[in-house]
């Protein structure tokens, strides 16, 4: 049994608390125990950086230090949380002065950033720690007749310093879908476009244009569903899609949900039953 500290960010609480239940169940089937890093806070969503970058570094030094204090590596599911925390880690590892200054503040809480633990995103954790073979073995209900469009999202591929796969031609998501037995669609026109999640509250028209392009091109392929390892891309697809004038109604899935379903959980337990754009398949 592998044990890892799970960083939830803003995505696995509130109306999304059920998504954490899905994660836990999915990982249990892979013999991985998720220990929730309870005292962690929002990573700042790459938005706090607009206010002050040092604040973003401090918040995330604290988040990482909480995992280090438990002697655990850190698993992050959200692409943006992953990028923001990985960027902070790089800054803290490279800049001794910054680290010293922030550690002085963390001391009050009895914490210290040491830079000793590893930070994983879902995709590299599945590849490097769990292994695709183990995923394949956990499958009880192969997604044989599912046509699944693979969508990575941006913040696991860019910038290069924090990328967890080949940024130009990534393969880790397809490998997982292959292990689940799905028919993979990884060539569609706007597969590399940004999901627009982060501009919904800065320039909404941008989000809607992105969604209409991506989901439109997914629809053209005849895919049953588009799957993403990022809960924010998933929200953009499932919730913001409904803001389009003529929503293409393309169902989407957060990767662990689809895995849970393939591992034998029913639609409701897997979370696939909780979507605003209904998942018809299965």
């Amino acid at each position, binding site marked *: 049994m592998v044990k890892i500290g799970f960083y939830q960010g803003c995505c696995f609480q509130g109306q999304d608390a059920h998504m954490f239940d899905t994660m836990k169940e999915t990982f249990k089937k892979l013999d991985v125990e998720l220990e929730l890093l309870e005292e962690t806070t929002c990573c700042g969503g790459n938005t706090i950086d607009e206010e002050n970058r040092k604040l973003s570094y401090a918040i995330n030094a604290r988040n990482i230090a909480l995992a280090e204090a438990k002697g655990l590596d850190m698993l992050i599911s959200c692409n943006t949380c992953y990028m923001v925390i990985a960027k902070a880690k790089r800054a803290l590892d490279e800049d001794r002065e910054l680290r010293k200054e922030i550690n002085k*503040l963390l001391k009050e809480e009895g914490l210290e950033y040491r830079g000793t633990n590893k930070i994983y995103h879902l995709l590299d954790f599945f590849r490097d720690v769990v292994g695709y073979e183990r995923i394949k073995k956990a499958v009880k209900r192969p997604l044989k007749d599912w046509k699944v469009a693979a969508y990575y999202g941006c913040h696991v591929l860019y910038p290069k310093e924090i990328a967890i796969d080949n940024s130009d031609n990534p393969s880790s998501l397809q490998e997982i879908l292959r292990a689940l037995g799905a028919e993979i669609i990884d060539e569609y026109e706007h597969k590399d476009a940004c999901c627009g999640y982060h501009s919904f509250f800065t320039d909404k028209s941008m989000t809607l244009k992105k969604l209409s392009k991506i989901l439109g091109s997914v629809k053209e392929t005849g895919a049953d569903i588009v799957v993403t390892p990022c809960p924010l891309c998933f929200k953009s697809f499932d919730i913001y899609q409904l803001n389009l004038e003529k929503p293409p109604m393309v169902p989407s899935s957060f990767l662990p949900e689809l895995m849970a379903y393939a591992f034998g959980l029913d639609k409701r337990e897997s979370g696939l039953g909780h979507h605003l754009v209904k998942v018809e398949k299965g």
Partner: protein
Amino acid sequence: METVKLQVFRYDPEKDSSPYYKEYEVPVEGTLLNALLYIKDNIDPTLSFRAFCRSEVCGSCSMRVNGKVKLACKTSMKELVETWKGKPLRIDPLKHMNVIKDLVVDIDKPIEKMKTLIPWLVPDPRVVPTDPMHESIIYPEEMKAYKDQINCMLCFSCYSACEAVEDNSRYRGPFAFSRAYRFQVDRRDIETAKERRIRYSISGGLWSCVQCQKCLYVCPKGVKPAEDIQNLRGQAIKKGFTDKPGAKKLKHYVDWIYATGQINRLYLPEEVYGNKEAKDKLTKAFQEMGVEVWEVPKPTKGLMKFRDIYLEILSKEDKALDLDFSHVRKIDKMVSDIFKADICTIVDRVHEREDKAKGLIGKLKGLIGGK
């Protein structure tokens, strides 16, 4: 010798009715620029592309390989073949600009866009001597603020890769904002110019950037436009441009994260767009599916200390007053109404409960003789 097929975009508007791809077999050695020169020297002298220095300085040879922006002289053929696993390599001109011929694009449009952001120094006479016989000294310490931005060589890689340019034709482009920001942090530049740059940045799409980070990825010089855009946004708010949705979004983040350690998606639509129905609609939609909705996150044990760290950083950076304490008090009241105690008491209770649990586990372990 190992070879690979390049499918190169060809188009001569004076002769061709539409673009087409022509295939060339080239050796897998050296750089992509070497491969293109190989074609020109040995196979087809009619192929046009821009290149000059061959050493990542002039920024002329940027283009796309299978859709991804690359500087040809910096891109190893071997790596390309490895990345694309032997697949043919499709070479296209940069996006978002008109093609003059083959891989040569017209860069006038992005240049004109950049100029609207005053990417030059407007000297402050109080700092810069007006007498040309006197030097205007810049100290190494000051240069740190823009040492990366000045490396931009106008290769337009970021302009081609940009998600905001793609869907907003008015958007000035990542490099343009980086060049503007470079003068925003220059001590010699006059305040009125800084103010104008912000104004023009906003009308040029400052809030349209989606923060995809592709500009950081494709920049051959390590400029970080998306981060400069974040800095410009912060400056815009500091200068009082707070009416845009993006400014309200940031305020939401700053206040809510301080107050609860989390943002609150239920309240974002109301606080940014004044949309009061969104919260109830979303709550209802989830409740109908049997999903429990929390209005505010339960304060965690470390919350009060987290607040101290947060405020201490903001104070040090002279930004403590950016926190809207009346908003924070409102959030505190929501928390106390829901959890039936004031915030400190709630945090203490969590603390107590956890300590008790720990004590209990300790006792149990003692009983069964474990450590």
